[in-house]
């Protein structure tokens, strides 16, 4: 009996060592640099136009999975449709990682439109527009618009040197800055996502 215990223990230990990978371990796995344009209509924020540039790793994986084994040099309508279907549309369930915080509460986002994929060298890029469920007014208080993945599987951040833009009717009176969002820390509190803060 004792003999058996001696053999069992290292075996258990081995499984433990191998098994204990925290799923949160090596996050993030995908990197996105985004450019954000906040769209106004009649003085209200109504949509976000987003341009996401992916790391080369995700780029080759997405093209491989969505389009096929052959190297893809340019993205035509067929590739665009395949990417939208296989490597984009599911993000609707996650609001395209786009979080919108008016002065009070939170506003839901709708289904993205105008999806367009392109290749910048080895990097895949998506552009699309995410509408808001209803227009929001930034006059009563600042509006925060941040793009981040709560699980930090994907590291989403503003592209270096690219300030967010404001566009459309009523945007001229408003200003936007990128700030760290200390209200919504992710990755066990160690990462503060960046948020565009809009004041009018």
């Amino acid at each position, binding site marked *: 009996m004792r003999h058996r*215990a001696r053999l069992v223990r290292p075996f258990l230990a081995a499984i433990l060592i191998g098994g204990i990978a925290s799923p949160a371990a090596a996050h993030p796995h995908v990197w996105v640099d985004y450019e954000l344009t906040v769209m106004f209509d009649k003085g209200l924020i109504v949509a976000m136009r987003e341009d996401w540039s992916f790391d080369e790793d995700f780029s080759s994986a997405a093209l491989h999975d969505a389009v096929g084994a052959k190297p893809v040099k340019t993205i035509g309508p067929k590739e665009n449709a395949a990417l939208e279907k296989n490597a984009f549309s599911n993000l609707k369930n996650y609001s395209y990682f786009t979080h919108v915080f008016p002065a009070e509460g939170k506003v839901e986002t709708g289904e993205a439109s105008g999806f367009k994929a392109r290749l910048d060298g080895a990097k895949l890029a998506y552009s699309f527009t995410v509408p808001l469920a209803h227009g929001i007014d930034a006059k009563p208080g600042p509006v925060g618009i941040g793009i981040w993945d709560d699980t930090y599987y994907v590291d989403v951040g503003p592209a270096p040197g690219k300030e967010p833009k404001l566009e459309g009717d009523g945007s001229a009176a408003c200003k936007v800055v990128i700030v760290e969002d200390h209200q919504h820390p992710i990755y066990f509190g160690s990462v503060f996502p960046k948020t565009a803060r809009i004041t009018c």
Partner: protein
Amino acid sequence: MVRRFVILIGLALMLAWGAAAPAQAADLFGKSDEPAAAPVAKPIMLPAPLRPILAAVVDIQTRMNAAMRAQLLKAREGQSFKPALIIVLFAFLYGVAHAVGPGHGKVVIGSYFLTRRARVMQGVAMSATAAMVQALSAIALVGIPALLFEFSSAAILDRAAAIEVVSYGAIVVIGLWMAYGVITGRKHSHGPEGDHDHHDHDHGHDHVAKHKAKRQDVWRMLATGAAVGLRPCSGAILVLLFSLANDIVLIGILATFAMAVGVAITVTAVSLASLGLHRAATAMGGRTKRIAETGYSAVALGGALLIALFGILELVGVWSGALTPGAG
């Protein structure tokens, strides 16, 4: 006996492989194709002083990842050996940093060596074998589907995720089993790692088994490695997928092993630190044998329960959506 273990491990691996049915399909963003779970009211937070450390590790990893990808793309152009050498070096450094973050068995390996008697070589061997077989299993995980031409990055990451979930279950069971062993008084059979310094007990059995034990050491290490293969290293999977997609498989495999060496160094450091702490504590409290034995049992029980609790937390985390399975 050992052979039975090897078969058992093989079965576990096959199970995990098969279990990766599309039940929990994750896309390339690590997301299932169902509406997002309601946001967790209170996300799990690290103690404040540790947060910047994790943030710094993430930052280093991010930079290394970017640099490694750039070199891999250069290697694809195939001009010289230099990019390949840089990749191997990067992969090694990445392995060291990668294993500092949560995961790679540090909590459990730490708990194990902190609460049990063990030899230094066992700490080194366990950590090193663990890292090496993690690399081998990553190569199998990516290579087998690639050879069968059913290669899809999302499916491969899915499979890795399923293997992870299986292993959390195993951790809970094992933690509880270890605890049961301590409670029912198996503490006197110190296990293969026991220092034989308690000769007031009947240990005649030990001497008979000595030669056998030596041979079993080798087997034990193989079994350790195989069991560790339950959960391949995600960093390696990503490098392999990328190199496969870019037709530079050999460099990917080289980088995978270099990464494993890096991971092994970090995990070994943790196991040796735990082992040292355990010895220091035993040396201090070990004056009276009776107290030492009681203390040893209590500590071992605590360690076993901690391991079980850790497994439960990971499972709850995955199920509640606080943690994303998928190539941790």
